[in-house]
C-alpha cells in the first residue's frame, strides 16, 4: 500500500515536460513561378469594406498584368504590426505593405523599406511636394501616401439636440468653450459630454498650438514637459468638471472597437476622430455628425495647429525579390482612375488631381462633408509635422498610460509629462545604432 514514491513523483515532472508547439515556417516565395509569372504578397490592415474593395482591385490588376499574381494578406490593425515585425525579422516580409505614419520611420529608418523614388515603374508626377515629403525619411521615399485626412471634432447632432445645446461656432472657439459645451451636453443629455482624445496626434495638435512640436525634423522630441503637462492637466480638468467620463470609463473607451466607443454609442456628443472615420461613426451612431475644427487657445483658427495627415501609405519591402513588380502594383494603386473609382475615399482623399476628378461623381454625402471640411481648413494649415522618428512608434502607448495615470490621480500632470518625455527620448535613443 504505497502512496507515492520519490521516483514516481519525479516521473510526474518528467511526464509534464511538454514539447513546444511547432512554429509555422514561412513559405519563402521563390523568384519565379513555373509559368514565368511572379507572385507578389500584399498585406494591409482594414475592415470588411476595405478588404472587398482591395480584392476587386487585385482582380482587376491581375487581369491587366497576367504575369503578376497577387497573394492578398489582409489583417486588422491590432495584430498587424506584431505580424509584420515577426515577418520582417524572419526575412519574410510581404512585398507590398500598407504602412502608417507611426511606423514608416520604424521600418524605413532601419532599411526595411524600398526607396520608391528609385523605381521607374512608379510615376510620382501627380503628387505635390507635401505628399512626397510625408513619405520621406533619411532622404528615402519609404512610402507613397494613399490620401490625406485631418483631425476634427465630431459633433453628434442628435446628442446636441437632446441636450438642447447649440452646435458651437468652430471658427472662433477655444478650449474653454469646448469644456463649457461638453459640460452643458453632459448636464442636458445626461451622458458623459465629451470623449477624450488621448492620442499622440491630438497631443501633436495641442503642442503646435503652443508653438511646440511632437518631433523635430531631425528626429528628436520637440516639446517641453510644461507643454505636455498642460495637455494632461486639461484632460483632468475635463474630467473634474464633469465634461468627460471618469477615468475607468475612459480606460475602457481607449481599447474599444470603433462601433463600441462612447462616441459611436451616443454616450458623448463631442469626440476627436480623423475625417476618414466619418462614415463608420455616422453609421454606428445613427446620427448626423458635424465636423468642427479642433479648438485653439486663442479662438483663432489659424492657430489651431491642424494639419493634413497621410491616412496611410503603400510601401514595398527592401528585401522583395520583385521590386519592379511591387512598384508596378503600387503605381496601379495610386495612379489608376479605375482603382480610384472602386476605393473612392476609403483610404483617405488622394492628393492627385486626376484621381480627385475621377471620383468626384461617386462621392457620398459623408464623403462630401469630410471633403468640405478639408478644403475649408486648407488656408489655415501650417507646415505639416515631421515624420515620427525611428523608435517612436510606441510613444503613443506611453502617452496614453501617463495620461490615464493623471486621470486616475496616480500622478501629477507635471510628473506624468516628465515621465512621458523621458520615455519618448529613451525610445528614440535606443533605436539609434
Amino acid at each position, binding site marked *: *500500500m*504505497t*502512496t*507515492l*514514491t*520519490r*521516483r514516481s*513523483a519525479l516521473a*510526474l*515532472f518528467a511526464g*509534464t515536460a511538454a*514539447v*513546444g508547439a*511547432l*512554429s509555422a515556417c514561412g513559405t519563402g516565395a521563390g523568384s519565379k513561378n513555373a509559368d514565368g509569372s511572379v507572385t507578389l504578397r500584399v498585406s494591409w490592415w482594414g475592415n470588411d469594406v476595405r478588404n472587398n474593395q482591395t480584392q476587386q482591385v487585385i482582380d482587376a490588376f491581375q487581369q491587366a498584368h497576367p504575369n503578376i499574381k497577387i497573394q492578398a494578406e489582409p489583417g486588422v490593425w*491590432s495584430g498587424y*504590426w*506584431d505580424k509584420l*515585425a*515577426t515577418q*520582417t*525579422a524572419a526575412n519574410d516580409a510581404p512585398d507590398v505593405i500598407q504602412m502608417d505614419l507611426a511606423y514608416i520611420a*520604424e*521600418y524605413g529608418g*532601419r*532599411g*526595411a523599406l524600398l526607396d520608391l523614388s528609385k523605381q521607374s515603374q512608379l510615376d510620382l508626377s501627380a503628387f505635390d511636394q507635401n505628399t512626397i515629403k510625408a513619405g520621406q525619411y533619411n532622404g528615402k521615399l519609404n512610402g507613397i501616401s494613399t490620401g490625406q485626412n485631418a483631425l476634427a471634432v465630431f459633433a453628434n447632432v442628435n446628442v446636441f439636440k437632446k441636450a438642447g445645446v447649440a452646435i458651437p461656432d468652430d471658427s472662433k472657439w477655444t478650449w474653454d468653450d469646448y469644456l463649457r459645451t461638453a459640460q452643458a451636453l453632459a448636464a442636458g443629455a445626461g451622458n458623459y459630454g465629451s470623449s477624450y482624445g488621448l492620442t499622440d496626434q491630438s497631443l501633436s495638435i495641442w503642442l503646435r498650438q503652443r508653438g511646440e512640436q511632437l518631433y523635430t525634423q531631425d528626429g528628436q522630441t520637440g516639446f517641453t514637459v510644461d507643454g505636455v503637462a498642460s495637455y494632461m492637466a486639461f484632460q483632468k480638468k475635463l474630467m473634474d468638471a464633469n465634461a468627460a467620463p471618469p*477615468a*475607468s*470609463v475612459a*480606460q*475602457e473607451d*481607449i*481599447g474599444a472597437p470603433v462601433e463600441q466607443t462612447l462616441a459611436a454609442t451616443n454616450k458623448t456628443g463631442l469626440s476627436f476622430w480623423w475625417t476618414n472615420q466619418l462614415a463608420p461613426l455616422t453609421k454606428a451612431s445613427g446620427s448626423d455628425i458635424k465636423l468642427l475644427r479642433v479648438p485653439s487657445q486663442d479662438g483663432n483658427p489659424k492657430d489651431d495647429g491642424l494639419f493634413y495627415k497621410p491616412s496611410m501609405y503603400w510601401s514595398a519591402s527592401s528585401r522583395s525579390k520583385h521590386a519592379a513588380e511591387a512598384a508596378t502594383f503600387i503605381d496601379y494603386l495610386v495612379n489608376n482612375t479605375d482603382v480610384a473609382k472602386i476605393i473612392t475615399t476609403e483610404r483617405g482623399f488622394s492628393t492627385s488631381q486626376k484621381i480627385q476628378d475621377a471620383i468626384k461623381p461617386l462621392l457620398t454625402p459623408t464623403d462630401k462633408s469630410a471633403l468640405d471640411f478639408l478644403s475649408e481648413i486648407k488656408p489655415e494649415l501650417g507646415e505639416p509635422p515631421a515624420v515620427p522618428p525611428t*523608435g517612436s*512608434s*510606441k510613444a503613443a*502607448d506611453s502617452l*496614453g*498610460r501617463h495620461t*490615464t*495615470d493623471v486621470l*486616475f490621480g*496616480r500622478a501629477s500632470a507635471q510628473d506624468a509629462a516628465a515621465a512621458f518625455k523621458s520615455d519618448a527620448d529613451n*525610445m528614440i535613443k*535606443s*533605436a539609434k*545604432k
Partner: protein
Amino acid sequence: MSALAELGSLGKKSRGGRPNVKRTYKDNRAAMVFLAPWIVGLVAITVGPMLISLYLSFTDYNLIQDPNWIGTDNFTRMMQDDRFWNSLRVTLTYVIVGVPLQLGLALAVAMALDKGLKGLPFYRSVFYLPSLLGSSVAVAILWKQMFGTSGLVNQLLAMVGITGPGWISDPSTALGSIILLHVWTFGSPMIIFLAGLRQIPGMYYEAAAVDGAGRATRFLKITLPLLSPIIFFNLVLQIIGAFQSFTQAFIVSGGTGGPSDSTMFFTLYLYQRGFGQFDMGYASAMAWVLLVIVGVFTAINFYASKFWVFYDD
C-alpha cells in the same frame, strides 16, 4: 528491425533473464527511436532558439538589422528601467497571491468531491472545465465583458444597490480581477489532488478515528503529509506556469498591460519590448532573467521540499 518489432522483443527479453551487451545496445536503439521525435523537437525548437536568444541578449538586435554585440548593456538598462521592476512586481504579486489561492481552492474542491459524491464524473468535469478554457482567448474576452464597468458583475451588484468599480479598467482592481480568473482555473491541480486523495488508504482514517482523532487532526496528520508530494508537484508547476502567464493579461488589457501598467506582466512587457518596440535584444535579456528567476524559485521549492514533503519510500 522495425520499432514495433523491437518493442515486441523487449517484452520477451524482460522475461528472459540475464541481459547481455548486445541486447542492451538494442534496447537503447529502441529507446532512441521513440525518443527521436522529442529530441529533434527539443534541439530544434527549444535548445536552439534558447541559445540564439542568449546570444541576442548581449546584442542590440531590432528584428530588422543585423545584431551588434553590446555586452551587458541590456542588463544594465534593465536595472534602471522602472517598468521592468514594475512588471516584476506585478508578476510576483500574481504568483504569490494567485498560486496559493488557486491551490487552496483546488484542494478544498477535491476533498469535497472525494467524499464519494453521486455523479462524481459529472462534477469533476464541471470543475475541470474552466481549466480547459481558462487560458483561452475566449474566456479572457468573456472576463473582460463580465468585469466591465457595465458588465454582468456590476449589474448584479447594482441589484443590491452597490455601484461596482470598473474592475478591469481601474488600476486598483485590475490585477485582482486577473488573479481571480487564474484562481477560477483550479481544475487541473484539482484533478491531480483528487487522484492523490484517492491513493490515501481509507484504513488510516479509520484507525485514526478509532483513536479519537477529529476531522482537523485527520486532515493535518494524515491527508496533508500523504498528499504532500502532490501538493509539491502542483506548487512547482503552478508557480512556473504563473510566471509565464501571458494570455489573460494580454487580452483583458487589450495588449497594453493597463490601466496604468497595473496588469503589465513580465511576459507582456517582454513581448511589448521585443515585438512592439523592436528591442529584441532587451526582450531576450528579459527572457533570460525570467528563466533565472523561475529557476531560483524552483530550486528553493525543491530545497524546501526536504523539510515538508513526505515520500512513502
